[in-house]
């Protein structure tokens, strides 16, 4: 018993010291690691002290309590049922009014659902188009336009349509393929081996961030879908079922890369009414 008393006091004492330490550390400017240790000791000391107290100094006997059997009150049930039915009887006599009440509540419920519509904009055609338009320059997220000469062979850069550098649905990868790899897509959709593909994975919409320059493949870090750029970004592994859409690109008079139109199909993951 004495041993237990000593251990309990030691645990409480450690906790008290740690709490004093905490205030000092806090006053001195704080440090997450020291705070963690001191919090652990000051709370843990109380925890250990309480359990030791319960184990050694409080009654340790096991007691027994009868368990009342539910349903033990079956005898009371008819009373409840009778009370309910007695109250329901006048309501049932005015059945039409009761139905009218229920109907009015139902209608109110339906009317109250409509504000849910205010939570979001109408999807409409939003998912079918991006911010790319004919002649819009491809710029980096800091707004810098890109010339073909900026792109070495085997290089890759993420671009947006000029003026829409935060448009998530418009993020596009410009990839310069090596000379011996014929660019995919219609011949007028690429410039000097530079091709453009949507960066949004057609599976769950993550940016397809990894480019494998040796075999010209794109890889999504979220679910490992792999797309072969020379084959029109066709999926070759992982859960994605569709290629990344290709953006037709050209060069404007100043030599900067521009889009020739919007994407010709919706970008990103599938949805119910996505056209083929």
């Amino acid at each position, binding site marked *: 018993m004495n041993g237990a008393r000593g251990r309990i006091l030691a645990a409480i004492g450690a906790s008290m010291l740690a709490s004093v330490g905490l205030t000092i550390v806090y006053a001195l400017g704080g440090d*997450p*690691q020291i705070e*963690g240790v001191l919090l652990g000791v000051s709370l843990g000391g109380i*925890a250990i002290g309480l*359990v030791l107290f*319960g184990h050694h100094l409080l009654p*340790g*006997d*096991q007691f027994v309590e009868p368990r009342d059997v539910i349903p033990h009150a079956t005898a009371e049930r008819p009373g409840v049922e009778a009370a309910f039915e007695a109250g329901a009887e006048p309501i049932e006599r005015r059945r039409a009014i009761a139905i009218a009440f229920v109907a009015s509540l139902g209608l109110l419920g339906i009317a109250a659902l409509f504000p849910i519509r205010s939570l979001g904009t109408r999807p409409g055609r939003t998912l079918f188009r991006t911010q790319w338009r004919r002649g819009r320059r491809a710029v980096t*997220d800091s707004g810098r336009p*890109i*010339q073909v*000469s*900026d*792109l*070495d*062979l*085997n*290089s*890759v*850069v*993420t671009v947006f349509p000029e003026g829409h550098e935060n448009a998530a649905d418009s993020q596009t990868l410009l990839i310069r393929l*090596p000379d011996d790899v014929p660019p995919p897509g219609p011949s007028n959709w690429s410039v000097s081996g530079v091709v453009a593909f949507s960066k949004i994975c057609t599976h769950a919409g993550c*940016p397809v*961030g*990894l*480019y*494998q*320059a*040796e*075999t010209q*493949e794109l*890889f999504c*870090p979220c679910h*490992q879908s*792999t797309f*072969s750029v020379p084959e029109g970004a066709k999926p*070759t*592994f992982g859960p994605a079922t569709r290629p990344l859409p290709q953006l037709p690109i050209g060069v404007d008079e100043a030599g900067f890369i521009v889009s020739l139109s919007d994407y010709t199909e919706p970008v990103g993951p599938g949805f119910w009414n996505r056209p083929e």
Partner: protein
Amino acid sequence: MKATRAALLVTLLPALVAGACSYFEKPEPFRPPATYPPLDAEALALGQRLYQRDCSFCHGDEGGGTSNGPDLVTGENGPALTDFMLSTGRMPIGQRDERIRRRDTPYDDDEIVALVGYIDEAFDQPGPGIPVVDPAAGSLPEGRDLYQEHCAACHATTGIGGAMLAQRGGETRGIVIPSLHSSDPTEVGTAVRTGPGAMPVFGPGVINADGLDATARYVEYLKNPDDRGGAPIGRIGPVAEGAVGWVLGLGTLVLFIRWVGTKRGERR
């Protein structure tokens, strides 16, 4: 392991000193570095000897490549790529299908200088020279920004590397993306400019010289980042957090309740 670290330090120090010295003169993007002056005849001879001994079997006597290995005269081949391959020990390899990965280089600094210089001089390589990378001159926030935009998806947010896939000959094969925690700033520069292996190329049109300094500075930072929160548990994010939460968190508490409570059939 200690020896590797010491060797790394020894190789890193001159680079850092050189970097610090070049701080005062604004470096041009493709100026050959101060550590690679035009080679004297002796060094060229050393380079030639080493090339014949270790490289020509696969890359050919004239650098034109053989059935065992690629040529050294097209694409990004140049001093930057050669230096990257040799100083990271990725070359030479013993077997043609051996996995190309970081090893301790068998060469000393002089030998690497000689080989890089000889190969460039003898084969008139088209690729970029070794960029001068000075992390001290780079901006840390800009480096973070560029790293997140261009590097993080493959080399991981914390620089630990990762895994991806490639189709080779109709077969899907795994690619191991190396960690950057043992890359020195020059290696970062040579890799960015030449895109060794599976890596794409980032020319000065995408990451300019200042950006390269900044990127290298952030890569340096990632070797020893601010772990204000405590033990970084592998820097792999929620997977390690979940494991630690179960084992250390819930595990400790289960031990605690086993101490508090009774075991099956036990009397108190």
